[in-house]
């Protein structure tokens, strides 16, 4: 049962990572690419970590795995903010519908 749950979470995580990567490659400007990375990848990471925690041999290992998530969330939120702010300060305009890529 736990095996299947873990496997399912892993697949969901992989899907979000895939979606985030597609977004990084295909989205038109720096802001939407950041959005793809910071949102989809972190959700994917959460699913993968949960899947791994379910299979961990001890509670301590499971908790350590789950601790990674909030740390990465905070780091990626901060870094995403810093990059977006820098891009804004450099005068990079957000992409609008109808703009070329």
């Amino acid at each position, binding site marked *: 049962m736990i095996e299947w749950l873990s496997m399912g979470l892993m697949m969901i995580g992989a899907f979000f990572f895939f979606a985030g990567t597609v977004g990084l490659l295909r989205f038109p400007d720096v802001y939407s690419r950041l959005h793809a990375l910071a949102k989809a990848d972190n959700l994917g990471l959460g699913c993968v970590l949960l899947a791994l925690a379910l299979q961990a041999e001890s509670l301590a290992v499971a908790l350590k795995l789950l601790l990674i998530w909030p*740390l990465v969330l*905070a*780091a990626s*939120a*901060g870094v995403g*903010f*810093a990059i977006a*702010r820098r891009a804004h300060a450099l005068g990079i305009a957000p992409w609008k519908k109808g703009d070329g890529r």
Partner: protein
Amino acid sequence: MMFAFDLLLALALLLSGLRTLTTPRLDRGIVLFIAFGLLLALAWARLSGPDIGLAEAAIGAGLAGALLLDAYGVLQRSKDLHSKGVAFKRLIVIALGTAFTIVLSEALLDPLPAAIDLRVPVAAHLEESGVSHPVTAVLLNYRGYDTLLEIAVLLLALLAILAVVGETRIASPSRAHPVLQALARLATPSIIVMAVYLLWAGAFRPGGAFQAAALLAAAAVLLHLVGLLPGWSTPRLRLRLGLVAGFAVFLTVAAALLRQGALLKYPPEAAGGLILLIESALTLSLALILAGLFLILSRDEDAS
């Protein structure tokens, strides 16, 4: 399965290394270099060398990356980025790098067998060394004098920098946005916990003073970058004491043990405690020295 991962890792290493060298923009090169360092740390972990992996991630990618980014900022301000002769310099670097790679691969393809196999004696005397992790036993016990001289060299490097830079007045860095400050504040406590853990874990698993110190130094650099920690102009007494503490404690222990007959020959029953004492002092000093290399060099002189 793992083979596929290793193959991907090796390809990613080669590609990122190549891109680091060939990208026309310096800032991209630096970011690629940091990514390269992290991939290299992964590779070391896969090669069962987690000690080197940790050091590579903390010092090679983290601290060196921060120093490079800082140097880039200074270069950009002095507008020296697009000076002439860049192509020529790159040519020299590429030529030397290629020569080095050829020599290195030749040496690696035909390695001479080690004159003496030390793995067996290292394992045999692990009981008496006071720690159960062979790397820490070698660094702090069997070849303690190597580590003693290493910390002396690092201290000397910092002293040389202090002597060259002299006493220029500096302004504290401009305060970063509150969001970034909050992130640094959030990260610092967990970095300190991690550093203490690494120091403690060094006795029985990968870890130890150097890795712990690199983490602490990274925390200091992070705090400095968001403007919460002023750059260091002239170290005051407390800071000076901290900088030399590791070397001083190490030297004191070495001097006190001289009558044992050999340099740094610990009595087996006290070895564990002595190593922990030395490693704690080393962590503090190394962290201050590594952070000092950054904080003293990164003073904003034009802001004064």
